[in-house]
C-alpha cells in the first residue's frame, strides 16, 4: 500500500463526515447524485475515457476506477437514505407521542 492511499481514505471519510454534519442540503444531495449519473454516462459513451483518467490518477485499469467510483456513489446514497429514515423516524416519534399524550388514561378521580 502506498502512503497516499490511507491518506486519501481518511480524507474521503472526513469529507463525508463534514458534508453530512455541516454542508448538507437536499439540493447538494441531488447535485452529487446527478454528477455520479453524468460521470457514468460519460464512461459508457466514451469507453476509453475511464482508462485515460485511471492512468492520470494511477489506478491502473479503467474498470477499477469505475468500480471505486460506484462504491463511493452507493455508499453516499446509503447515507442519504439513512438520514432520510432518521428524519422520518423522528417525525413518526413526534406523532406517536402526541397521540399517546392526547389519549392518556388518567387514574380515576383525576380526569
Amino acid at each position, binding site marked *: 500500500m502506498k502512503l497516499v492511499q490511507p491518506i486519501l481514505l481518511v480524507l474521503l471519510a472526513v469529507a463525508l463526515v463534514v458534508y453530512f*454534519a455541516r454542508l448538507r442540503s437536499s439540493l447538494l444531495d441531488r447535485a452529487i447524485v446527478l454528477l455520479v449519473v453524468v460521470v457514468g454516462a460519460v464512461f459508457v459513451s466514451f469507453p476509453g475515457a475511464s482508462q485515460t483518467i485511471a492512468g492520470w490518477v494511477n489506478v491502473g485499469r479503467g474498470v477499477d476506477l469505475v468500480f471505486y467510483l460506484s462504491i463511493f456513489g452507493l455508499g453516499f446514497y446509503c447515507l442519504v437514505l439513512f438520514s432520510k429514515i*432518521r428524519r422520518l*423516524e423522528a417525525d413518526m416519534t413526534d406523532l*406517536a407521542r402526541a397521540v*399517546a399524550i392526547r*389519549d*392518556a*388514561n*388518567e*387514574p380515576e378521580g383525576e380526569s
Partner: protein
Amino acid sequence: MGQPGASTFIVVAAYNEGSVLRDTLAPLFRQGYSVVVVDDGSSDDTWTVLRSLPVHALRHPINLGQGAALQTGMDYALKHGAEFVVHFDADGQHPHDQIEEMLAPIRAGQADVVLGCRFLRDEDRRHVPLVKRVVLRAGALVSALMTGVWLKDSHNGFRALSADAVSRIRLTENGFAHATEILRQIRLAGLRYVEIPTTIRYSEYSRAKGQPVTNAFNIVMDLILGRLFR
C-alpha cells in the same frame, strides 16, 4: 395532586411487561407518587393491566424504544405539573424504597439530576453478573469519551430529575442510546449531577428481559450515526 408525593412523577417505560407490571407499580402508587407508564406498543396484555391500575397510562401506537417512551412520559409529567421526575424500570429491578434517597439531593438544592450507580458499594457491585459488570464499565468509558461526563455507571436507568432539568433535556435517541445521550445533554445544559449508590435486583425475569450485552455495539453505532445526522 392531593397527596404529598403526587408532584413526584415516576416515569416507567413498559414493553411487553404485562406479567410483572402490577408487582412493580403497586409499591409506587401506594406511596402516593404519580405513576406515569408509557406502554411502548406492547403486543401482550400490558395495556389491559395498566388500565386496571391507578396510574397515568399512555400508549404508543407502535413500538419506538425505551428512550422515546421516557421522553413521552417526561413530556406528560411536565404538562401535569411535575416537580420531580424519576425514571424507573418496569421489570422491578429498581428499589422503590430508594426513591426518596434519590430525590434528596434535588430537594436540598444540591443537584438537578441524581443518577443511580451500581458500582459505589461492594454489596451492590456483587449483585451485577460478571460479564455485565465488564460491559457496563467499558460502556461507562465509551460514554465518558463521547459525552465528557465521567460516571462509574452510565447505563443505569434509575434516575431522578428536577422539573427544570426535565424541561432542558430532549431525548432523540429512541433506543437504548438515550442513556448516553442524556448525559451529553446534562453536560451541555450545565445541569448539576451526582451519582448515588443503588442496589439493582437482577431476577431471572429482568435478566431475560434486559438488553443483551452484545447490544453495546448497536448503542455505539446509534450514537455515532446520531451525532452525524442530527
